């Protein structure tokens, strides 16, 4: 699994850095309602640990997903996009009129081979 961001998502990340500082992180959500949304928080506010996997960085911000969800999603690369919207719960994009959205592409997991 790899993570990347679209230009509009990178733009929103830069805007959030201006308001909230550069020390941010992403955590990929799962479940219902706003599930599947990538959530962005001040790094010191969200506790990540051994049960999380660091997928990569977008716009200089680390992007995490829980280990169990990583296992279930391992056949996909994540592309973080930005769309119009108001939700996102406590994520820093909430209320900006824009929100992050996870899009996905199929990938080949490490160690697997195409035959």
């Amino acid at each position, binding site marked *: 699994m790899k993570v990347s961001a679209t230009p509009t998502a990178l733009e929103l990340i830069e805007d959030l850095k201006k308001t909230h500082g550069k020390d941010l992180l992403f955590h990929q959500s799962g*479940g*219902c309602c706003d*599930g*599947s949304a990538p959530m962005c928080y001040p790094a010191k506010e*969200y506790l990540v640990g051994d049960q999380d996997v660091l997928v990569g960085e977008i716009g200089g911000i680390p992007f995490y997903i829980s280990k169990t969800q990583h296992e279930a999603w391992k056949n996909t690369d994540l592309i973080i996009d930005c*769309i119009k919207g108001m939700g996102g719960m406590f994520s820093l994009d909430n209320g900006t009129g824009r929100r992050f959205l996870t899009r996905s592409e199929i990938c080949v997991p490490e160690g697997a081979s195409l035959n």
Partner: protein
Amino acid sequence: MAIKKKMANKKKKVARKSNTKSKKKIKSIKKKKKVVTKKIKVATKIKTKKRSKIIHLDTTKKRGKKMSTETVKGGVSSSLDTSHLKVPFPFKAKYGNYIGGKFVEPKSGKYFDNVSPINNEVICQMARSDAKDVDAALDAAHEAFKEWGKTDITTRSNIMNKIADVLEKNLNLLATAECLDNGKPIRECMAADLPLVIDHWRYFAGVIRAEEGSVAEISNSQYSYNIPEPLGVVGQIVPWNFPLLMATWKLAPALAAGNCSVLKPAEQTPASIMLMMELIGDLLPPGVVNIVSGFGLEAGKPLASSDRIAKIAFTGETTTGRLIMQYAAQNLIPITLELGGKSPNVFFEDIMDKDDAFLDKCVEGFVMFNLNQGEVCTCPSRALVQESIYDKFMEKVIARTKAVVQDNPLKMETMIGAQASVEQMEKIKSYLDLGKKEGAKVLCGGDVAKLNSGLENGNYIQPTIFEGDNSMRIFQEEIFGPVVSVTKFKDEAHALEIANDTLYGLGAGVWTRNGNIAYRMGRGIQAGIVWTNCYHAYPAHSPFGGYKQSGVGRETHKMMLNHYRQNKNLHVSYAENKLGFF
């Protein structure tokens, strides 16, 4: 049961099987409609009477923005016309917060536009609250708790019964509000959401009357009395999929247990609960229920992280669930979390032993993934069908899915309405794309639904059936749309293996004529609720909650009361003599 019958009747009507039995049922619906019309008249009277007590905020401009067709009375376009439902347009142009028994302006003076998913037109403006408003609501709640926490159980119960009565009298008006705010079909609002709301208020009003503490006789001079006591002021954050019902799931047990509440509705669906408070507010002492609308980050977070709440209840997704637990850990307070699922719906071969009413019920059970546009935490979004009946059964469910009527949610004939927000529609689209990329076969639907007649800007998705493998993402993540992913299984053991191959465990369905299979599967599936030969049943008397990553705690049922209170143990010695230690 009545709800089910009504739903079944309407489905039958559209599913073309007109026989004398269904004609009789339709007649009875028509009769009921007449009764409902009478109720509306009463409701409108009550509403007008109560309105005089409400602070009227500035009600100018904005409504009807992005109008696509001609306007009707109420300033909205004809797509949002409610006159055929015999109710006025339910919303005022602007709502403040409901704090301390009255509507008040947000302290910042800021509002945000609330749109209807039906056509994304602005229907009213809502307070854009922040930490200061949350504080004011907490002040009011703490003040109210001094009395409410000590109120006689009979008094609390009677108030809750009165609330249920007023809601029942206003059922059509509230159902219309819910339809406009959320985009769900009016027939579901009338036959499911609102009747369940009323049922929950009555259930908790009733159940606390029959409850007792306990006494243990430790010895003939020592007794241990257990007395349940309320927690105090609780924070509650509700989702946008069933705005009034989810608010009621949280409010009714909290109030029944003697707590006061500060509740934040979802920013996508903030309006219907304000209408509910307009109707029932004066039945409660000021401050017992406080509703603060606004965004998650600005209003939800200060509530969830406040050191002035004794408990936080949240329905949503996993990452925010973890953050809420973190805040609760910092304040050392209890939580209840409901975080969704990826519920399996399992169909065994014996369902096709006969072509009878039960098989018809099983077909409906499959198509239940369309209920509430699939925006249900327990959406049966993974269907497991035994391979021996796969082709024949799928033929039936595809035909039934194609017969689902998608149109303006305000029409009584509409079976599937609009997704609750544009971003939700975008998310579903991203999963429709992903399913195709993963190699899943589209058996029907698979795209956005383009509707016309003023609905061009609304959020509509075609009912979609994917065929694939349980390892695919579309089988592993809740899409929260009218999308089911179906796969085959060989035998019972295989079915159980697939059913449990998920991170979640909220709901499940098992369909079989064999009671032993039903029992074994019911016990084997790791989920909080396993519906057997039924689905999407949510009576107040059935507990709801998740195994695994689906959450912590239960909602509904009297067991919910203990999530909203502490146990006071009064340990009393009636002996005159000392122990003799000192």
